[in-house]
């Protein structure tokens, strides 16, 4: 059978088996839709719109305090670790950059389970209740998590600086730079890979980075603390810009559905 004849036959089959529309049902649907639309318009005129700032404050009450408590606990452990290390100056000078690197990576990683959990439970109900896009909700939660992490980072860097062993640039390159890099990677993965694989992918990436840090420490190779100042600060600015870009991209995202529904 030629192609045109086959297609004509196929179209004919579809047309002949096409179900008839029930006018009554169509009118009923139209009535329901109008009622629903009107009720939404009325409820919107009654509710007060809140800005992104207020959304962030509300999220603090909902989830922020839990994350910050966890991060405080982590800080306490880190403080004990640094205090122990500073007790032995020889160990401090050799391993400190790698330890700071690993701690910074762990701090950045702490946002991943929160984001994975939020995506996993879709947050559709919150979204429809708050009328904020999923992207803005995620951005708000990410800001809260990373704000806590930044405070911890600052505390960690302050403690290290108090030991007077390292210069500011060395501390920054060992802690802030890997923190920004891992935050950029984890945020960048969001929306680029399948939702179901997000947490596993981030965990794998962080595990590889930590393994590399451990190997570098064992081998006694150079660390980010040894980066030339220009290269180090450039890398920091680049990573900061990448993080800002990823958060902005997250802000604009409507959905984290992966692929299309027809695949």
């Amino acid at each position, binding site marked *: *059978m030629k*192609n045109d004849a*086959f*297609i004509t*036959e*196929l*179209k004919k*089959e*579809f047309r*002949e*088996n*096409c*179900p*008839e*529309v*029930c006018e009554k*049902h*169509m009118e*009923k*649907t*139209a009535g*329901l*839709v*109008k009622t*629903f*639309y*009107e009720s*939404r*318009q009325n409820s919107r005129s009654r509710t007060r719109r809140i800005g992104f700032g207020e959304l962030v404050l509300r999220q603090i009450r909902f989830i922020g305090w839990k994350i910050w408590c966890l991060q405080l606990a982590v800080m306490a452990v880190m403080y004990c670790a640094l205090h122990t290390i500073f007790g032995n100056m020889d160990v401090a000078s050799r391993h400190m950059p790698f330890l700071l690197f690993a701690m910074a990576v762990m701090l950045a990683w702490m946002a991943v389970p929160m984001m994975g959990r939020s995506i996993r439970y879709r947050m559709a109900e919150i979204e*429809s209740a708050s*009328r904020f*896009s999923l992207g803005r909700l995620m951005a708000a939660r990410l800001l809260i998590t990373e704000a806590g992490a930044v405070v911890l980072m600052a505390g960690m860097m302050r403690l290290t600086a108090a030991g007077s062993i390292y210069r500011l640039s060395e501390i920054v390159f060992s802690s802030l730079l890997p923190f920004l890099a891992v935050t950029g990677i984890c945020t960048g993965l969001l929306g680029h890979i399948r939702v179901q694989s997000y947490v596993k992918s981030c965990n794998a990436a962080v595990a590889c980075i930590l393994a590399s840090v451990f190997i570098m420490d064992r081998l006694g190779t150079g660390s980010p603390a040894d980066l030339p100042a220009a290269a180090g600060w450039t890398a920091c600015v680049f990573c900061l810009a990448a993080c800002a870009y990823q958060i902005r991209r997250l802000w604009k995202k*409507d959905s984290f559905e992966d*692929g*299309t*529904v*027809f*695949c």
Partner: protein
Amino acid sequence: MTRENEIFKQIEQGNMESLDELIGLYYPEIFRYCCWHTSNRANAEDAVQETFLKAVRYMDRYAHRGKFRAFLYRIAANTCIDMSRKKYEVPVEVEILEAVPLVDTSFRAAEDETDFLSLVRQLPEEMSELVFLRYGQEMKLREIAEITGLPVRTVQSKLRYALKKLKKTAAAEQNEERALQNMQDKRGDGDEK
């Protein structure tokens, strides 16, 4: 300004009659789409109603750029998938079942479904979808690409492959039928002798 643009403008200004018009514009094709993706007419009607309600619910997310059709189809697809996952069946009273004659006018009127449509259903899901949108809903390739999120070239090549596969399967079935018919004829001749 296209008719659809005018309708949206009217809706924004609070003209509810325009919503009627919008639904009238898309109801038949969305209903056909839901019939193809659900097990019976009642489920299809529920799906199409749910689709339009969701479209209103998510209207804020849709910035009108002439892609309302694609937006509706995505919602319809998700609704049908949700229904099939929940193994959705409309509960019907036994008395109603007995009173109403069994006339299923959906695509899946089993005994009546012709070979072509059953062959289309046997294709992989994505291809079956493309064939239905192209030849059942008579959409253009660009429209199908908007709905499915696939590039136009991909839609074109997958359709070409699907048609090839359909023709091959149809030819094989026809040969089988012919062979069966020949056997039956031979047996009939043998009996006569």
